[in-house]
């Protein structure tokens, strides 16, 4: 499971990630901020203005 999820085949890479609370925090903010918030706002900004 853990190996399959990590690109890096080095053992314990996954455990290192799971033990790094700050990296998890960064990922947990960055992923939704990009895919949900920024992309969503981008969609709205790109609605053409009525003439």
């Amino acid at each position, binding site marked *: *499971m*853990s190996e399959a*999820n990590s690109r890096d085949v080095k053992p314990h890479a*996954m*455990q290192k*990630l*799971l*033990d790094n*609370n700050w990296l*998890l*925090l960064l*990922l*947990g*903010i960055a*992923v*939704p*901020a990009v*895919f*949900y*918030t920024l*992309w*969503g*706002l981008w*969609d*709205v900004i790109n*609605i053409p203005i009525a003439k």
Partner: protein
Amino acid sequence: MTTTTLSEFRTDPVSGLKVNRTANTLVKWNAFAAVVFLLVGGIFGLGVALTRMPSVQLLSPEFFYLALTAHGLINLAVWIIFFEMAVLYFLGAHVLSNRLATPRWAWAQFWLMLVGAAMVAVAVLGGNSSVMMTSYVPLTAEPHFYLGLILFAVGALIGCFVFLGTLVVAKREKTYNGSLPLVVFGGVTATVIAVFTIVSGALILIPTFLWSVGLINHIDPMMYRIIWWGFGHSSQQINVVTHISIWYLIASLVFGAKPMSEKVSRGAFLLYILFLQLGSAHHLLSDPGLTSAWKVFNTSYMIYLAVLASMIHGLTVPGSIEVAQRKKGLDTGLFTWLRKAPWGNPIFSGMFLSLVGFGFIGGITGVVMSVEQINMIIHNTMYLPGHFHGTLVAGTTMAFMAVTYWLIPVVFQRKLALAGVAKLQPYVFSLGAWVFSIALMGAGTMGVQRRHSDITFAGQPLAYQYPEIAKGLMDMGEIFAVIMTVGAIMFIVVVLASIFTGERIAEDSAPWPKVADADVVFEKSGKKHIGIGGMEAPGTFVLAMILFATIVLYYFINFKYLSTVWGMS
């Protein structure tokens, strides 16, 4: 270490945990505030429910919206988040035999949240802030409504960082070895999601506050909705993660169970961190302006990775209980382990009802209605409150209640009072919540809309007749809402009676008997295998297949129904 002296800690006779007194006080106050707010929010909920009952219609429309705003905010935000603060401090300090990083900041968390909640309550009760919990612009509330919410959120954010700092202390002072215990890792997951949640909330509520005092002249309603739901939906995911951690905790407390695979459970939490929050998009499936690519990517492709994680937890929690029970000798048949579980212990029964209720009622319906096409059938109908009382009430709230029955002796150092009431409480509350949820979903499928005080539309220019059965479902649902309220009051009475009148547990009293570790019992028994046909948890496997089949079936029923909504010719 100059700050840590021995007398700061006591050894708890009930749990055997080494308890830091300051941390314990903070857990107490946050949990106590939570329960008091649950009472207040529940009373407003009852008012709302009795209004939505076509044959009662208790409140006037104005007062209905006031009560709905109060109910939504107090229960959804205040009860839940105060309780979560208590859980985080408990995980960071008690579970790790640790102290809190910065008790002063923790008190700042408590007071900011309390003052914020009070400001919101004053604004709502004043009658000019009936904007409901979503406070969609351009609806306007009083400035102190938004300011209160902002203070509350800042308080919660401080609490998150106190927890993260507490983990740093634990690591530095080596109060644990290796990786964090799984339940604490669940706390980390909840905290990560909480930080995204709160930052989203601040990003949108601060400008809205400035707009309400006239410093900004326009807030785009579509942008508001996107950012607000980054807050509104993600906050639900904090709840999910917290109650799942509580399930794991209770499985180990009551059965001496161990997670079936730490790796798999941790991997599932990681999936939550990465993908769970994207589900926020399911609130915007009917919004114009947002592309289908955005909607489908966030609500279908990515969210299924988080759904997968939920299925993993849903499988490993009962699975670990089954394995523990079998190791302890209940190794016959498919379900002996479950039948012989301690159903009279509210800690267990509450937890298991939460698991089943969350999975079958809240979970299945949530997954299915997040599909863009199916969402069109039920968007903004009573189906929604039906669904989320399945998750929030039958799931989260029930789990929080269950763990409270354990926290009372450990944290409040009192024996549970009114044990007979406590024993029945999970059943009464769950019965109410389950039937209420299902009935509301039924009514919603017939088009009865949410957030409306009168389904007969008396005196409205655009009248509409719902089928009689929809009214019947609303009446029935709300009767069960009353039962649910009775269950909530039973809980509150037990908690207050225990805290104030329960028999004190002296600090030096004899340790309470410990639940035997399932592995140790198994080793002593000399047996080699458990389960059936090489499967360690066959009963859980069957339950999981039933859940899976139900999802698939429910999915098809909904698509079939969708195909009949517009007749094509």
